[in-house]
């Protein structure tokens, strides 16, 4: 697993080993070829996965690396989508409106983060829950800006005069943004900023004793996360092409958090795994819906309850998510047949009080 490093370049390179470069290069190449090999429907589904991955990476920085849960991230997705659509329809070119959508989301993140992040992470969860429903309500009532319940059509974007058409254009666009976002995230994680975030996650008190300004770094993390989610939102707007405020409600927020929990907290791989899972689950349900016994497939609340059930099972039995399971599997085969059952035994944990009396 580990390698002997012989030069500083190896330490600086993002990819790590040469075999990593080969494998990720192959992955990227095959992703580039997807629109040539598959029909429009699958390209559309793949773009959806990519868009969820971008949002997943954004939320992973917050939840997986800083240890804060946001239950209103769909609001940032919505803010990004609406900001992008409104800017485009006012004549702002797409190359500007996309980053602006991210910046506006980030600004909204700062606005909600500054007052709430001084307190424990619990308050952030509650505050973002409230923030999420406020944003949806405002979107519904502010007819002049958002079109309210009538929805808002999203103009077709164009880059340097070339229109980006559905679905292939959106696919490549989302892929490019995802690569950029991953590049940013990987770099953030190895700067002092990223180290500070991980330190805060592991112990706020020890991080503070090391001179980390908790409120500042939490706010920065929240802003970056909101900004990246806003980028995903802008692309999401182009994917659905018609925005409605109620589609950015609590259910979408829960889906986004499910991405990071199912994928595996604290790994960028996890964000991607989780996004693949969450984005494709509805399709998988639709495929098997008619074959399920006892009419289970016909129950109206099937999809949200399945999300709930999977979330509960993952938290109870595999807190490290898909990525953690994958690492265990890899370790098992690497060490075969010397695998030790105790390597991954979960340590007994005790309630840690956060109170002082």
């Amino acid at each position, binding site marked *: 697993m580990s390698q002997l490093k012989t030069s500083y370049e190896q330490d600086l390179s993002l990819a790590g080993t040469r075999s990593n470069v080969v494998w990720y290069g192959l992955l990227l190449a095959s992703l580039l070829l997807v629109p040539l090999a598959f029909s429009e429907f699958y390209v559309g589904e793949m773009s959806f996965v990519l868009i969820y991955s971008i949002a997943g990476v954004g939320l992973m920085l917050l939840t997986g690396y800083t240890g804060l849960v946001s239950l209103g991230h769909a609001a940032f997705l919505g803010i990004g989508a609406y900001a992008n659509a409104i800017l485009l329809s006012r004549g702002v070119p797409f190359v500007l409106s996309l980053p602006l959508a991210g910046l506006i989301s980030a600004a909204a993140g700062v606005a909600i983060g500054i007052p709430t992040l001084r307190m424990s992470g619990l308050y952030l969860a509650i505050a973002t829950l409230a923030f999420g429903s406020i944003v949806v309500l405002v979107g519904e009532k502010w007819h002049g800006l958002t079109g309210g319940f009538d929805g808002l059509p999203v103009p077709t974007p164009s880059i340097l005069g070339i229109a980006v058409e559905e679905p292939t254009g959106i696919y490549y666009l989302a892929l490019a943004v995802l690569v950029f976002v991953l590049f940013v995230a990987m770099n953030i994680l190895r700067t002092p900023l990223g180290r500070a975030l991980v330190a805060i996650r592991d112990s706020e008190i020890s991080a503070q004793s090391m001179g980390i300004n908790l409120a500042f770094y939490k706010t920065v993390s929240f802003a970056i996360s909101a900004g990246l989610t806003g980028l995903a939102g802008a692309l999401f707007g182009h994917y659905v092409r018609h925005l409605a405020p109620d589609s950015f409600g609590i259910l979408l927020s829960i889906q986004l958090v499910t991405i990071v929990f199912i994928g595996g907290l604290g790994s960028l791989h996890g964000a991607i795994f989780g996004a693949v899972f969450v984005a494709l689950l509805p399709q998988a349900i639709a495929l098997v819906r008619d074959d399920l016994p006892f009419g289970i497939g016909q129950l109206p*609340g*099937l999809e949200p309850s399945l999300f709930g059930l999977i979330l509960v099972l993952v938290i109870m039995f595999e807190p490290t998510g898909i990525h953690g399971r994958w690492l265990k599997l890899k370790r098992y085969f690497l060490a075969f047949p010397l695998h030790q059952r105790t390597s991954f035994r979960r340590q007994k944990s005790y309630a840690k009080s956060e109170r002082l009396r």
Partner: protein
Amino acid sequence: MDDVVRILQLVANGTAAGCIYGMVALGFVLIYKATEMVNFAQGELMMLGAFFAFTFIELWGLNYWLGFLLAIAATGAFGYLLDALVLRRVIGQPQFAVVMLTLGLAFIFRATAGAIWGYDAVGFTTPFTNQVANFGSGLVLGKDQVSIIVGTVILCGVLYLFFSRTRLGIAMQASSQNQLAAYYMGIPVRTVFSLIWAISAGVAAVAAVLLVPVQMIDVNMGLIGIKAFAAAVLGGFGSIPGALVGGVIVGIVEQLAGYYLPAGSMELTSNIVLLSVLIVRPQGLLGQTIRKRV
């Protein structure tokens, strides 16, 4: 004169609604004080309580009071099992794991209730439905609202006596103040925690049954939980009287906003109250500032 009566009327309506929020908030606070877990499925426990009562009273045709008691017992038992089978396993995991776990449970409860009782709103007749109590000088209250307020007061009295006078209640206080010391004193802390979950689910059931004359029962009635959050935060998360006071304040502010402010602001009120309390006075009205243990 008219204005005074109208304001009194709004305040009374708000107090009744607020008592419901307060009771749900009480459930949050009881669990939070004892186990430091936040139960995002509290609203859904209330929804289940309402459906249990509907089953006993409307479907089985039992007497209202008997059905009321049975619903409390059934929801309480459900809360006990929920802690014993699910929540106890995640003790020691980070706080947000519990948040996500209870959110997941909320979705499961909602879908299960929909599968069992259907997605249509239902209700049943109570002794308080469509009865009016006249307080003179034009102030008219539904008996349903009076029953909510009186019920809340009785419930608080019972809980107060329970926590201050009974052995079990004092054991619960002890376990929530210092788990380790409670263990040393021979208190079965884990059972006590499950019992606290049971009480909190039972309180949710009381709120649900009292709410029935005012609001229909449906799968999404658990969304009241977000308003209860506002109540709990306003009262200072972790303060039992604070939860009730917060609930009443949120209820009254909501009624006044619904009357005096433009349409649509009523739904926003509780959220705005919640956010502004977090910004202005995060420890709430009655909460004490708590520093972290190093």
